[in-house]
């Protein structure tokens, strides 16, 4: 057990208890201070030209700007019902993911903005960007006296998987947030939390993309517009080697056969060209083609899909008739896509399952998208191209501001 940030004595269990005590005392509203602090963190990131090479860090810095935080608070920390108020739940315990380096900070920021105390478990496999953020937080909290009090209410820890530590932390929390997939969720979930506590879990999810073929054919005649669309798709799909939950792994082509074929012929060569430029590792990593091929072989053997194009194509394209649970869970990322052609909104809606998180779409009207959302039993976000990976406090069907708040009713 290692405390990476926060007050530490010789006994970490005492430190946890102290933090817990702090959450019980009537606290002044720490939200304004949190906004100032997060904004300062944003400025620190923008200040250093070295960080320009980490787009996810820059996206975070934009998100942490005061104006954005104020807008978020205004939007999410109010209720529409009369005489109701959102108040902090108390101590939030966050299990943050190892694969997306900036995620812990988003989770923490919402914990701060909602006025809670926070304990974050950081992964020991975290990458460079997480280290940078840790260093910056440490620097600000230790060197700018106005933020020092944040250290009284917040703690970042790191430990090897250890059920006793998890149990100790869990028994003191009011909210437990588990990022990081099915295995982590199941491993942590059976460790009890206090009876009154609530939990938000982020399991493995599957994401798709939907393209209206005639709309794509139309923009393909105009050079600039197609490249903007391709840019959005490539960013959505290939960050994190296509292993992010929100990155599309299946493409639904909407339209008649001939138009779809035409659209595909515009789409894929352009995608490949941009990936070559932006994510060359996906094309040159020696072990990836055989991993893609192994995946294809499995799908083909079970007759769940057939190869479109050649076995060494990038991306590797697989025509599927339907998407069962196996196809959803076995997809390895790395630049593989299931493709299917559909020509009714109802069929799109019936394809979507509870495991599905993000549907990026191109060429559909708001009312068409509404229809899909209202008919489908799954899907948490439908967003335009380029927005798949953009963090939002509305995630996996939760409003995180609300998850970390108590709804208080006051009637006189």
């Amino acid at each position, binding site marked *: 057990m290692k405390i990476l940030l926060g007050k530490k004595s010789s006994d970490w269990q005492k430190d946890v208890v102290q933090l817990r005590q702090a959450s019980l005392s009537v606290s002044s509203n720490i939200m304004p201070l949190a906004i100032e602090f997060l904004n300062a963190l944003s400025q620190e990131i923008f200040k250093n030209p070295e960080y320009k090479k980490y787009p996810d860090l820059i996206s975070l810095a934009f998100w942490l700007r005061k104006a954005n935080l104020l807008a978020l608070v205004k939007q999410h920390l109010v209720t529409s019902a009369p005489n109701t108020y959102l108040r902090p739940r108390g101590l939030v315990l966050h299990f943050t993911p190892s694969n997306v*380096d900036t995620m812990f900070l988003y989770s923490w920021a919402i914990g701060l903005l909602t006025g809670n105390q926070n304990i974050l478990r950081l992964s020991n496999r975290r*990458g460079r960007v997480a280290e940078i953020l840790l260093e910056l937080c440490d620097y600000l909290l230790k060197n700018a006296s106005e933020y020092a009090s944040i250290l009284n209410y917040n703690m970042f820890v790191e430990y090897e998987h250890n059920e006793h530590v998890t149990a100790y932390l869990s028994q003191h929390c009011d909210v437990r947030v588990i990022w990081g997939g099915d295995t982590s969720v199941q491993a942590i979930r059976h460790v009890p939390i206090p009876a009154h506590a609530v939990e938000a879990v982020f399991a493995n999810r599957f994401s798709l993309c939907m393209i209206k073929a005639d709309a794509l054919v139309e923009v393909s005649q105009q050079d600039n517009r197609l490249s903007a669309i391709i840019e959005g798709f490539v960013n959505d799909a290939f960050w994190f080697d296509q*292993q992010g939950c929100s990155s599309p792994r299946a493409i639904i082509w909407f339209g008649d056969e001939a138009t779809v074929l035409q659209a595909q012929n515009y789409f894929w060569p352009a995608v490949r060209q941009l990936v070559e430029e932006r994510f060359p590792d996906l*094309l040159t990593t020696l072990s990836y083609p*055989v991993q893609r091929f192994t995946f294809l072989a499995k799908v083909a053997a079970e007759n769940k899909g057939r190869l479109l194009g050649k*076995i*060494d194509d990038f991306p590797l394209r697989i025509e599927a008739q339907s998407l069962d649970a196996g196809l959803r869970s076995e997809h390895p990322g790395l630049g593989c896509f299931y493709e299917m052609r559909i020509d009714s909104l109802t069929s799109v809606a019936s394809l979507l399952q509870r495991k599905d998180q993000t549907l990026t779409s191109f060429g559909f009207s708001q009312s068409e998208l509404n229809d899909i959302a209202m008919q489908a039993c799954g899907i948490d976000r439908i967003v335009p191209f380029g927005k798949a990976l953009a963090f939002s406090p509305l995630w996996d069907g939760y409003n995180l501001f609300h998850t970390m708040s108590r709804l208080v009713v006051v009637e006189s």
Partner: protein
Amino acid sequence: MLLEQLNAPFEMNQDQKQQVLFAELLALTDHHQAHCFYYQNLVENIFVQKHFKQNEDLPFLPAQIFKYLPLKSIREEEVFRVLNSSGTTGQQPSQIFLDKAAATHQAKVLSSIVTNFIGKKRLPMLIVDHPSAVKSAGMTARAAAILGFSSFGAQHTYLLSDEDLSLQVAALQAFLEKFPQQPILMFGFTFMIWAYLYEYCQKNNIFLDLSQVILVHGGGWKKLANLNIGKETFKQCLAAQFNLTKVHDYYGMVEQIGTIFMECEFGKMHIPFFADVLIRDPIHFQALGVNQTGLIQVLSILPKSYPGHSILTEDLGKITEIDECLCGRKGKVIEIHGRLPKAEARGCSDTHQR
């Protein structure tokens, strides 16, 4: 049937061999399509081009597929033995299904190769492993190899203790005294030979004369590569410590029953006539030429009970010569370079730059 020519596994030159093999492999491709539902799907959904003209056109399966699906071209009640690969921890093992005929062929083929290098006479045999390695439930690749090679020896003696894998020095010395000045066969896994025989003796100042020993070892170099010990060092150390110079490394895998590529007295690994190797580019999978490094594809006419006659492995290697080895064995000579480096599943942003 080709298998009747088993007494001469290295006589056919590459040109002859290629033609003979191609017909057999093509027939096997049809056979498995007719008898294995998964294989039929696989070929139809991936390898649409049906005009196979040479070995490199034939469909190939990724080696890992045997971990995910029970591929077999025999009926359930015909299954005589199931071989499991040891696999990396946490992974499911490969499953290879043999019927009686396949099991018999496996033994015959292995024998034809091995006796070509060590002679037909059954030799007194030392096994650098512990006795219970072959007694575990299910047939592991390790047990299958030990038992397979055991048929070339007699008076089998296991050299490691079941408790802590320590070398049974007294038993070894007694064995050497019992069979003085005659060839002795020794078998074990490369890493076991290194760690439990060589290093043990070296650290404990145990000096043994093993000049009469013919060592056959396999199982790969991954662990030794991590210790930065290559083939040459391995050989030099065994020669210096034990005067042990007759050393034959072999390459084989559970998915390619019976077919192993064995090192000759000139240190070259030979491919027997009933098998072939193609080297493919790891990115585009096109077949490469002599001295070009790529993924090893193994072809063999043996696998009839399961569709393993054409497998793309995740091992890297290259063909260094064809029909030219000084030992007189014909066919291709292959050099194995080890496992394709696995990229960690990444999520860290610092690996990609805009």
